[in-house]
């Protein structure tokens, strides 16, 4: 199946073409560029499927250099290439599927609502898909960084799509700036990796994870660790790259941009949260997992930050009023779980959760978008209620997504979250840090159940609380179709990796595990396991069946408890704002633990003041010195010109005096007067 790989670059190229088409001729097209985007992403989806099948049959990774940016070989060259292996093939499928559905949904959300500037919207969306697909296919860290940044640009353009209002441009700026701050560390990391290894390739014998491993084993020569112990240096590099990951994947403390990013159109939010920008961070960790596996410190930090973020964001999600805000915090929280999984060595669990999350979160956002359209762009859940009867398709698909998000068996989220927590528990049995991370993740499950069903009940159950909710706006197939597709997927996608069932029955139905056991030698999950065991001290832990089941049962119970609490509190005809009873805690939660405040202070208060101080210094002291030199010379010149009286006699006298002085001086020096 060589054919599939030959077309692999087209997976990314098709959306790029549609970007150009939408940008330049979109305004002359019937759907303002939507059709080009749908065609392109549909094509990408088909090609991704083909490539996926090709990987399935051949099993070997496909590496190819597509374009050389800098062809110098010494010290290193900069290339754009593609790497198709199990991980990227899976991710391509997810990204192109979600992109395609988002394009279709946009027909309803944007075109039917009569928005202006649609060519710009579709161009941005196409560029977004292009950047993410290229990022997923990236064969080296340098290329990954490039498209990571482009993803950031697209998010800026799309979050700020409604630029005439004040909030969206501000949110777009914040998103770009905060992720840029993370990318600063990522860039140092990329430069450092290239400087250290002379290559940034992800796969192959000369790739940097392999070289790093050899360096640790003392086998590789010519690796410049800048005077550090290799292990320390690799940890530093890993953490630097992690800076970018934390920015894009909205991990604490760089998560603040994400809730604000809800100012963008809802389909964009779906794309950002499910498949593109936020996913990029976690995907990057998975992509260079062979490198992180070498550094226990970096892994511990990843796990701890992930666990903390999972809990931290979940608590904030409980008190939000807007439906999209709740989903935003749930995204932060869910990516925390993925980080937790990757940090504790659960590579498959992390990717599994990434996959399931992509489905149900895209679904939830599209559902929320449908609700928002129905509510005439009112997002406040307290203004909704009772939409269940009026929007049945939306309700049932949204419910499927919510069950998946909350982690209720047998929906997708249960399987993946259970596996994440199980891996964390396994690791936590040797190391208290991971145990704390696990505990935080576990408590997060309760809050997830609570906020998810609070959202469902407030939106769909009870009595309509406003007149708009009594008679919502209706929408067409183009919004229902993507929701139905994703609803089905969110229900069943968890079946690809039912580890507890496999454990119980002994049947080999852990398809995702099997999938990742194939492929390039240094990219398989076994290889990662070996690395973890050798370098990070993650020994194999004997997991009894009871533990597997117990872990699953605990998380399911907690999720049900959360959902139950929501049921008791909010599934009534006329719910109260129970969170008001929390008093000052609610204020803290509602204000996101004042994270925004200090970051805005850092960005605006502090930096702007420093900048103003620098400006005053520059104008006053540095330029003042320059102008001082100028005024001193002007002053001296002004004084000196007064010698020039215009009276010839004075000139002559000065001349004479000058001559006398000169003669005396020369005479004394030359010994004339002896």
């Amino acid at each position, binding site marked *: 199946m060589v054919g599939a790989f030959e077309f692999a670059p087209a997976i990314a190229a098709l959306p790029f073409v549609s970007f150009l088409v939408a940008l330049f001729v979109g305004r002359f097209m019937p759907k303002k560029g939507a059709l080009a985007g749908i065609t392109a992403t549909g094509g990408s989806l088909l090609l991704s499927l083909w490539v996926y099948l090709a990987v399935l049959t051949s099993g070997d990774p496909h590496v190819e250099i597509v374009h050389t940016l800098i062809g110098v070989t010494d010290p*290193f060259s900069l290339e754009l290439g593609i790497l198709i292996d199990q991980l990227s093939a899976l991710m391509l499928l997810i990204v192109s599927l979600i992109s395609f559905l988002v394009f279709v949904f946009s027909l309803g959300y944007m075109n039917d609502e009569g928005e202006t500037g649609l060519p710009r919207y579709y161009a941005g969306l196409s560029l977004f898909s292009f950047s993410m697909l290229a990022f997923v296919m990236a064969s080296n860290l340098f290329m990954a960084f490039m*498209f990571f940044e482009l993803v950031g640009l697209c998010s800026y353009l799309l979050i700020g799509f409604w630029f005439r209002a004040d909030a969206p441009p501000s949110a777009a*700026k914040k998103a770009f*700036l905060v992720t840029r701050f993370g990318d600063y560390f990522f860039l140092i990391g990329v430069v450092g990796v290239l*400087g250290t290894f002379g290559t940034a390739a992800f796969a192959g014998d000369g790739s940097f994870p392999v070289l790093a491993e050899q360096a640790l084993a003392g086998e590789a020569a010519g690796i410049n660790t800048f005077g550090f112990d290799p292990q320390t240096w690799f940890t530093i590099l890993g953490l630097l790259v992690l800076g970018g990951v934390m920015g894009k994947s909205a991990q604490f403390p760089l998560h603040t941009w994400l809730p604000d990013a809800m100012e963008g159109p809802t389909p964009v939010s779906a794309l950002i949260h499910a498949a593109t920008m936020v996913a990029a961070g976690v995907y990057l960790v998975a992509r260079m997992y062979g490198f992180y596996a070498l550094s226990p410190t970096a892994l511990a930090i990843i796990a701890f930050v992930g666990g903390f973020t999972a809990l931290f964001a979940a608590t904030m999600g409980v008190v939000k009023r807007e439906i999209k805000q709740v989903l935003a915090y749930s995204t932060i929280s869910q990516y925390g779980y993925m980080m937790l999984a990757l940090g504790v060595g659960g590579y498959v669990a992390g990717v599994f959760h990434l996959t399931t999350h992509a489905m149900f979160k895209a679904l939830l956002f599209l559902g929320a978008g449908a609700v928002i359209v129905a509510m005439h762009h009112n997002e406040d859940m307290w203004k909704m209620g009772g939409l269940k009867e009026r929007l049945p398709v939306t309700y049932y698909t949204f419910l499927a997504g919510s069950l998946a998000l909350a982690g209720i068996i047998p929906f997708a989220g249960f399987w993946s979250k259970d596996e994440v927590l199980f891996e964390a528990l396994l690791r936590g049995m040797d190391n208290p840090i991971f145990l704390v991370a696990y505990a935080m993740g576990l408590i997060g499950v309760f809050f997830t159940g609570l906020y998810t069903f609070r959202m469902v009940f407030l939106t769909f159950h009870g009595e309509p609380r406003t007149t708009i909710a009594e008679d919502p706006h209706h929408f067409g197939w183009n919004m229902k179709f993507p929701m139905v597709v994703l609803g089905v997927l969110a229900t069943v996608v968890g079946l690809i990796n039912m580890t507890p069932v496999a454990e119980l029955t002994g049947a080999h139905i852990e398809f995702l595990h099997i999938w990742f056991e194939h492929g390039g030698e240094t990219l398989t999950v076994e290889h990662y396991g070996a690395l973890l065991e050798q370098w990070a001290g993650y020994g194999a832990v004997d997991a009894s069946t009871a533990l597997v089941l117990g872990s699953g049962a605990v998380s399911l119970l907690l999720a049900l408890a959360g959902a139950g609490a929501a049921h008791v509190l909010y599934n009534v005809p006329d719910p109260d704002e129970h969170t008001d009873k929390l008093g000052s805690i609610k204020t803290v939660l509602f204000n996101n633990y004042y994270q925004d405040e200090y970051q805005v202070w850092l960005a605006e208060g502090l*930096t*702007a003041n420093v900048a103003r101080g620098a400006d005053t210094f520059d104008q006053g002291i540095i330029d003042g010195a320059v102008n001082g030199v100028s005024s001193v010379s002007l002053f001296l010149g002004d004084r000196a010109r007064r010698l020039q009286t215009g009276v010839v006699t004075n000139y002559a006298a000065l001349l004479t005096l000058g001559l006398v002085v000169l003669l005396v001086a020369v005479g004394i020096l030359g010994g004339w007067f002896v």
Partner: protein
Amino acid sequence: MMIELLLGVCLVGGLAVFLLPDRYSARLSFGISLLPILASSYMYATFDGVGNALLEGSTLAFETRVNWLSVGPYELFYHVGLDGVSMPLIVLTTILTTLAILSAWTPIDERKSQFYGLMLLMEASLIGVFAALDFFVWFVFWEAVLIPMYFLIGVWGGPRRKYAAIKFFVYTNVASLVMFVGFFLLVFGLGDSVQSLGLPAIAGALSAPGAVGSVGGLSPNAVKTAAFFLMFAGFAVKVPVVPVHTWLPDAHVEAPTPVSVILAGVLLKMGTYALLRFNFTLLPEIAQQYALVLVAFAIVSVIYGALLALAQQDLKRIVAYSSVSSMGYVILGLVAFTLYGLGGATFQMISHGLISGLLFLCVGVVYNTTHTRMVGDMSGLAERMPITAGAIVAGSFAYMGLPLMSGFVAEFLVFSGSFAADFAYAPVFTAVAMFGIVIVAGYYLFAMQRTLFGEFSVSTDYEITRAAVHDVVPLVVLIVLIIALGSAPEIVFGMIEDAVRPMTELTTTQQADAGPAGMLGLGVSLLGGVLL
């Protein structure tokens, strides 16, 4: 003969435009300025130079060397020729001049023929600076640039044009003097071993060990150090390096848009080009010895310049100060003395020329329509001026180093180069300098948010119309070039690499091993210092 042709077309064309009446000058000068583009593109396509112009083993493209006259013991040659560093700069000059002339059609409405004549004259001088290889010829062109620039700022500038023009002229002229003294200190130090002021000859003489003797009681090493720093000080003004940068914002703000484009796009590159040619090619060992001092200048320029840009309200001042910041990267790359450092610095010269040119043109278009440049005086321009707003967004992101645009490649190369440089704590210093990219993002994002987005309003009473075609064409051309260079940097980097690689062999590699603990401590304290 191609270089003479270029110079001749610009000079004769400039003179003709100068003398002809105003009503022909705009179109005529545009037409004339297309000829150098054609010529330089042809030269670019047929470029056959090898190696660095000043160093042994190089073959120059389009070389002319004629004995001109002798002064004292020195033979002066008319010697011009191109290598991989100067060729792209000449192409940049020709392209930017044409675009600047095109962008002058709207704002310049008096003394047109003089304006366009001076623009062409300046183009000739700039080409001469980049092509000359004999100090004397080079110096004549170097100084000749100031004259048209002085008049262009002083006659067609804004309200404080006299102040700005005089400041510019005096500042850069004093700097030339300092540099001149430094250069001749070096030449006198060489004594009898050079008989000409040709730069290759001097470089050849300097490469011999112990070539420099003592001058006026200074030891040979002191002569070299003094010469290096005098020249550095002289060129630093042109670059400009903090703390001798203050002429730049004033000159930029007062200069008319087309002149700002040339000023930022090409004139600043004279400084870095001269640093590369003189300081870093002639005296590499001094550059290495004092690398930390130079890096400190670079970092201060990057961070301090960016902070200053953050505090500005005038769009032109923002771009002007961010030029200070960007040129700091060039210094950083030069000091690194690695292939990517030097090559990246040269690439950054080209890239910054295009990007800052683009942004100045954008600000000019905004100013032509709204008659204000203050951030607080306008908002929501994207609604009425979509193409210009798009160009501003593109330019700003290019400045922030967005991938697939030339700024990213340039900055990435500079960072990779200096990260692996030989001087102590190179990674830490690089990381600190890289923080500039965050601040750059900050001020451009703030400026864009306030001017382009939000509700449309402009505090002046002019009617806002779409920009004319001849205002938009230069923007599009520059964006295309920026993206082309960003996605296929090989089209110039191959040439640059060939010319700077010999320079990396000038240095004696001495890996200054810094203790990891010290490195971390320094990094944390530096970053902390920068952040606070």
